[in-house]
């Protein structure tokens, strides 16, 4: 084999092995870092793994937001506007766009008492925008 051919072959093998490794590492990383998203009825029905990092979302139930008397702890209910409702506990400052009756997504863990311990709360940034995760819910709501 001519030397430049051999070089070419080396480069191709190198690229192939490199991209294969990248794909494998990425997929492995994805397995570990994927957050599954759940709707309120799934949380309520108990099919959601406990004490695992997940995301959930729905609408903040009007009148459900209760601040603790000291500290920044706050509890509120997330509902799918039908029967399913779960309680969220969060320590910290709620996002400025967080409002009762509006959509919110929470990230955190569901504990064995059925309370969602949120590490992050995301509120939508624009009243015309509905996160794709919650779209199904809005459509259900339409008569």
């Amino acid at each position: 084999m001519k030397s430049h051919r051999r070089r070419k072959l080396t480069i191709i093998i190198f690229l192939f092995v490199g991209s294969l490794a990248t794909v494998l590492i990425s997929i492995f990383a994805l397995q570990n870092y994927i957050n599954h998203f759940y709707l309120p009825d799934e949380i309520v029905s108990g099919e959601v793994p406990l004490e695992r990092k997940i995301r959930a979302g729905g609408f903040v139930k009007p009148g459900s937001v209760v601040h603790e008397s000291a500290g920044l702890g706050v509890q509120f209910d997330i509902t799918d506007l039908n029967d399913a409702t779960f309680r969220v506990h969060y320590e910290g400052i709620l996002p400025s766009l967080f409002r009762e009756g509006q959509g919110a997504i929470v990230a955190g863990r569901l504990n064995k008492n059925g309370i969602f311990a949120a590490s992050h709360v995301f509120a939508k940034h624009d009243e015309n925008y509905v996160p794709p995760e919650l779209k199904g819910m809005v459509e259900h709501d339409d008569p």
Partner: protein
Amino acid sequence: MIPELGHFSAFLGLMSAVGIALFGFFGANQNRASWVDMSIRLTKVQVAVLTLSFLLLITAFLDDDFSVLYVANNSNTALPWYYKVSGVWGAHEGSFLLWTLVTAVWTVLVATRARHISLKLHGYVLGTLGVLSFMFLAFLLFSSNPFERLVPNVPIQGADLNPVLQDIGQIIHPPMLYIGYVGFGVTFAFGIAALATGKIDSAWARWARPWVNIAWLFLTIGIVLGSWWAYYELGWGGWWFWDPVENASFMPWLAGTALIHSLAATEKRGAFKNWTILLTLLTFTLVLMGAFLVRSGVLSSVHAFAVDPQRGLILLTIFVLVAGGSLVLYAFRAHTLNTQVQYWGVSRELLLLINNALLVIAVFTILLGTLYPLGHEWLVGGDKKLSVGEPYFNAMFVPIMLLLSFALAIAPISRWKHTPMRLVLNALIFLGGSAVVALLLPWILADGVHLGVSCAVALAIWIMVTHAIACYRQRNALTLGFIGMSVAHVGFAIAVIGVAVTSVYTESKDARLKIGESLEVSGTDYELVSVQPTESQNFIGERARFDFGVQGSLFPERRFYSIREHITYEAAIAPGIFKDRYITFAGPMENDTWGVEIQDKPFQRWIWFGAVVAGLAALIAMLDKRYRRLSQRDLETRYSE
């Protein structure tokens, strides 16, 4: 009348785009100078009518013409005039009109400023830009018309501009970003033209390089502005979230960075020709994919525009046409650009190859993380939604960047073809020195040693040292190109330090405070001194005063925008070279207390400073003599080929 005139002007822009494309392509194909000149003339027409169209939309905003749907949705009489103007690009339709205007401006610049390139190439470049412009304008006019009327029920008041967009950052961030995005459309056109002519030599690379640099400069500035804006405006002090829309801008940036480096090898050594062309195509393909992701609403993002499936479909079609068409052309024509270039050992070619491989891997991992939720939804079904969080991106991206830093530090001492081992070993010795400094520094600052940060800082210092030494050694023969490269790499190193330090050593605390109480963060006490009401034309709110240190004061606000019933936190920031103090004020809580979050963010500014330095370095490199000198000579050869 004004909106109809604006709509009509945009339509004339569409017509000119047809002309630009036809005269450009056929002029190049038939080698007819008069046709290419016609194409050049039409680019001027196009930029004139689209500027008019854009100005007319601004007029509609300034006149509070709420009979126009887009104005009614995104403006309000109470809005200050400058936000009325920037409201033009505050949502989908108007921002896309700006996008088409930017395309027209780039096209006219290429038409008039690149007269020294060969006629064939020029014609194909303009033809390609004409086709892109046509697709953008068709999309604008047929599915996103910003001039659409709301008749007969004209509202007396507009819905107001989204308050988080009422900010200086929003005024300049999108235009910069679009200039960068569409600038890569120009390099895409250069790539297509190279495939069409079947000729790519160092002259082609010299023509393309300044355009790539300037597109990259604007995209860099655009991304930095977005990051900086998110940092101070969204009120939680984050500067990068790996949000799909951020990724949509970051992937073309990474591909563009790879392109800059690949072009260097193509220009100087005639190496990587096929690869360079592929990168010009890939970069713009990523731009279009980003536009699709952002504007179709398929992804969950804080940035996404309101959802419209029809728009998504049209954008997807444009994306498939451009990406598919260009790749097919590439598959048929790329072999004509064969190269035979020899290099061995730690040559500059090898380092550039490593750079490109790592950057493309970075693009790929980000692409995978961004599209994975979508792919999962399509393949597995819509029931189970999932998302890929920051940890994935950090886990993938950080190691790639550290490897890249390593290769980058050797870059300035490397030579084309082959680098003597002595030089490489020399460079490695400096790595040892930098590592010692990086390990000692945290001890001196008494913050505790963090291995990752020490690695990053060691590599960053090493990069600065090797570039400084290389510049010193070449002091008698320094070109602007070499200076530009060095400054860009040092900028990168500065940003690396900023990212590493601020990510690990940021300290954040939140609390409920009464007036007179204080909160200690990172050794400083912040006292809540007072809370005063505040108001403006379109909001009311509270303004708090925090005192810290000897005479520091910060005044964060919480605002309530009554028209949209929208609350924003206006964080107060005390910026500094070595640390930012960042206070978010969340307003009243029970028992006369106020919600507060205080953050101490060391080296925060270094991220943006480094990125801006790197961006400006692209400008320095562009001014290199060799890009100017050729104009006269090439002018003479323009018609001879």
